[in-house]
């Protein structure tokens, strides 16, 4: 168990170190998420004012789209210089590679959310910070669920043709339950008198989905990565 976590940590550290040198993924994903929010702020307007209740959906869509982009970029890097083959040849637990990459992706998505949430709160006048702890937990569990499926699929598709379009095609239907639960919980929190019980219900659903997806991903990562 200890070596499993150590391997995951090493993989994540490698990713962070490579990223820290160019910061390409960070800047491009952040800018993309900001552009996304900008497009939505023009799309969801009625009589010159933001549409009520669109903020929750916009937040999760921005997270999903930025996440997809980040996933595609993260594994593109692995493809170059055959890094993934090197990792697979190492005498380590393969699921540990998955967890390491997952942690890197989650970290990037969290950074994106740190920028996107205040931006949407500002542009759509949404009270995201009314219940900060619950909101953060919802976002966190949703991100983990999305990233778990995404990391698995992106790793799977690394040598596939048309992988750029196939990743969203495979990813979005599978992560719709996470989005439904995330948006449901966020909407419950954004109401004038926040419905905390409903938000907690959706949070429980997210936790359940996370456990399911993580378990399935850990099981299937090894067989699909053998060539």
């Amino acid at each position, binding site marked *: 168990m200890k070596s499993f976590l150590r391997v995951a940590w090493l993989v994540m550290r490698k990713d962070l170190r490579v990223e820290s040198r160019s910061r390409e993924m960070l800047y491009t994903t952040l800018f993309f998420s900001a552009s996304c929010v900008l497009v939505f702020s023009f799309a969801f307007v009625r009589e010159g004012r933001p549409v009520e209740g669109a903020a929750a959906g916009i937040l999760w869509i921005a997270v999903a789209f930025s996440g997809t982009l980040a996933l595609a970029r993260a594994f593109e890097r692995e493809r170059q210089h055959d890094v993934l083959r090197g990792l697979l040849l190492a005498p380590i637990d393969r699921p540990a590679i998955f967890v390491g990459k997952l942690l890197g992706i989650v970290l990037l998505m969290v950074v994106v959310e740190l920028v996107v949430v205040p931006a949407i709160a500002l542009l759509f006048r949404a009270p995201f910070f009314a219940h900060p702890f619950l909101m953060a937990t919802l976002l966190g569990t949703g991100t983990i669920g999305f990233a778990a*499926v995404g990391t698995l699929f992106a790793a*799977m598709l690394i040598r596939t*043709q*048309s992988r750029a379009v*196939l990743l969203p095609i495979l990813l979005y*239907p599978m992560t719709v339950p996470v989005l439904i639960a995330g948006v449901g919980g966020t909407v419950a929190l954004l109401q004038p008198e926040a419905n905390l019980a409903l938000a907690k219900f959706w949070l429980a659903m997210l936790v359940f989905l996370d456990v399911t997806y993580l378990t*399935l991903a850990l099981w*299937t990562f090894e*067989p*699909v990565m053998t060539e």
Partner: protein
Amino acid sequence: MNQRVFTALLVVGVSMFVFAPFMIAWAPYESTMGLVQKIFYFHVPSWFVMFLAVFICGIASGIYLLKEKPAADRLAVASAELAVLFGLMGLVTGPLWARKAWGVWWQWDARLTLALILEMIFCSYLLLRQYGGPGSEKLAAGLAIFGMANVPFVYISVNMWRTVHPTTNVVPTLGPGMFGAFWWCVGAYLVLFLVMLAARIRLEKQLAQVEELHLALETD
């Protein structure tokens, strides 16, 4: 499946479908919906067969991932295609019924949403296999396992959440007139599914043989 069994099943299936409209016409009217309810005899069997196809695909995919048997992969792709087909039938018959029974073509309740997601997951399976290039069989197998995990939720969703869709209590409590017609249609759909599955697997096997011959020719 040998040729004789296949032909026999085909004849049985066709006869069952020819006779099905009579059984449906003889079945009693449901109290609130009347004639409109009778689409139930095609709608529910479509989804039964779709769930069966998804399970078969998921299990075959699991076997393929673990044991790498080509036969398991052929079974997986055949049942995935049929899952999409029968799911499409279910997704068409459902709204046709809903328009009359609920007044709307579609509702975003739990069951309909999850069923649509299931259908889309298997559409994406087919897209991956078609456009993913070599080596996409294993990846698609991983996807199918995730898809299979979705099915129990679709089934129990109507019991867990209050939705407009009828609950799973309907089928076990069917009256005598409806019972016969319903299970006849289920049988007809199952036979149809088996026939199509056998034909598709045979096609896939032949494609594999052609591929092998091609390679043998090239390497000589």
